[in-house]
């Protein structure tokens, strides 16, 4: 596999970086032995087609993101426009993408009924996705039951959050 990503993957990572607030270099490192992105992209496309009965939704998401990027907008502006889309499915798909990256799981929304409020259930995509959830990075911690830290790490101050997110500072509006 070459380090060079396909155009589709580049747009998928660009979209994911804007929505998650993580740097593209964290979501898709140049040398990427885990390569969770290659699991997520086809999984995300398949799920969108199945759940929304819309085989074009995935491509619409990417093309919308590309169009906004081409306008020179900041990440914050791009994100705002993505989630202000008039298409409800489009917005839900964005939110599911965020959920997938952060938790390594796929969310299913259960509509309110019989007096019960709307709720979400989630299913882990794989053992690998569990350890790759961005939520652990934001916590400056590690997945339960899986740690790469050295013995005694708990007694030391963790690295700065920016080391985990890949941003030099936490100004999320900065262009990547």
């Amino acid at each position, binding site marked *: *596999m*070459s*380090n060079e990503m396909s155009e589709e993957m580049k747009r998928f990572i660009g979209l994911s970086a804007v*929505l*998650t*607030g993580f740097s593209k270099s964290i979501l898709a*490192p*140049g*040398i*990427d*032995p*885990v390569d969770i992105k290659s*699991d997520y992209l086809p999984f995300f496309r398949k799920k969108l087609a199945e759940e929304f009965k819309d085989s074009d939704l995935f491509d619409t998401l990417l093309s919308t993101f590309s169009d906004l990027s081409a306008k020179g907008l900041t*990440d*914050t502006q*791009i*994100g*705002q426009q993505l*989630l202000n889309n008039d298409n409800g499915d489009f*917005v*839900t798909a964005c*939110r*599911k993408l*965020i*959920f997938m990256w*952060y*938790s*390594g*799981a796929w*969310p299913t*929304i*259960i509509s309110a009924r019989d007096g019960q*409020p*709307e*709720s*979400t*259930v*989630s*299913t*882990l*995509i*794989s*053992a*690998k996705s*569990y350890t790759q959830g*961005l*939520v652990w990075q*934001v916590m400056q911690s590690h997945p339960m*039951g899986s*740690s*790469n*830290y*050295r*013995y*005694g790490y708990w007694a030391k101050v963790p*690295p700065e959050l920016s*080391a985990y*997110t890949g941003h030099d500072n*936490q100004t*999320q509006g900065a262009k990547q």
Partner: protein
Amino acid sequence: MNVPPLSCSHRFTITAALATVIYLAGCSADEKPEQVHSPQTGEAAASIQLSPHLPLEITVTKTPPTLESLQHDFDVFSWQSFIALNWPAKPDGSPDTDRTIGDGKGGPVVWQQWKESRDLFLPDGRKPPDWNQPNQLPDVCRHLEPSSAPANRMELTQVGKTPNLLDESEEPFQTGPLIDQNGQYTRYAILTNETMFNYVLDNELYSKKGQKAFDQDADFPSSNPKENKTGSIMLKAAWIKMGGQYDPDDFHTREALVYNNPDEQPGVEPACSLEQVGLVGFHIAHKTEDEPQWVWSTFEHVANAPTKDRDRKREAYNFFDPDCKDCDINEPPARPWNPGTPHSQPTQVERVTPITREAQALNKRFHAALEAAAPGSVWTNYELVSTQWPTDADSKTDPTGAPAPSFLANTTLETYIQGHTPQGSSNCMGCHGNAADTNGRASDFTYLLQRAR
């Protein structure tokens, strides 16, 4: 699990994104089969030079490098290391440059004169003898003189040293013993090179008392090619007794004292015998300047075990019986474990993660070079499984350096923890990154310091 619904968010910060994340539920491990790609490296067509000189750093052959090209470069480093370490040795332990690897003249190879862990961590924590001093033997082994070895197995007398001692019959991390097709326990040894040995010696890390006085994280010396300095190297070797189903001509063999160590398991009676043993598994861990997480190479005998869900290439294996249809696969033997048992049920072993096509191609190239250098070389019966290396050695958030591949196992050394389960399956750096000394100080990717008394 029912949880609150996804919240709507119109800001794109970490916090906002986090707000969309609810809880995790369930776990379905669904690993994809390993993808195979062809490396595109400029080195591909170059001929292989067999050298007695240990490589001190990886040679990067492609710019910009890719995951695949770097894996290839690290695998070449592994093979070069394997050849240098298995080069015929002179009596002082240095490589005999007048000979070539596998030249059929016998005798010890370079690493066989390194120190075993029991030579470094003595039972009472006293200072071990210097590098060039003879090793200590258990009392029960003292009556066995090297000269008692058959005349055609003269390694011991040529070296003029106390014979090597195999005193471990369980795989690393106490996952259990491995029983060969003769019903005998596989034996293990952990060895260090002189640099690593002297670091322990000089800093008095061979005892609990010394480690307490040291009171800092261990930091073993690294190899440095600019200074032509060989850093710390640690080996793990797996051996089986020759005879029965095992033809010594198919293995790298040596004479060794095989010791049943009562400290390993309750009920083990001390016993010692001089045996001809054959090499079946070999780990090399080498700390280099650019890889402070060490480089982890692993080799096996080609006939160890078939690969799961693949066509079998052989009629017989070292650790697999094709005729046993109801044998449990990769299951440790039932307790009690006692290497003194005359015969135990053989372990049925399969390789869980296939050797990649690229590694297989590299193995063929090195086998061809070994055969050309010494026709009939026994070393063509050994193959590289893979090399684990840090893809981001300077990572601030992952002290293991984001290893590639994420998992790596040798069927003779990590038989029962093969696979791709995070924190459960064998991952050299991930596991060794947790190593600490007897005071809880990080011990630089080696568990050896925990053996101090």
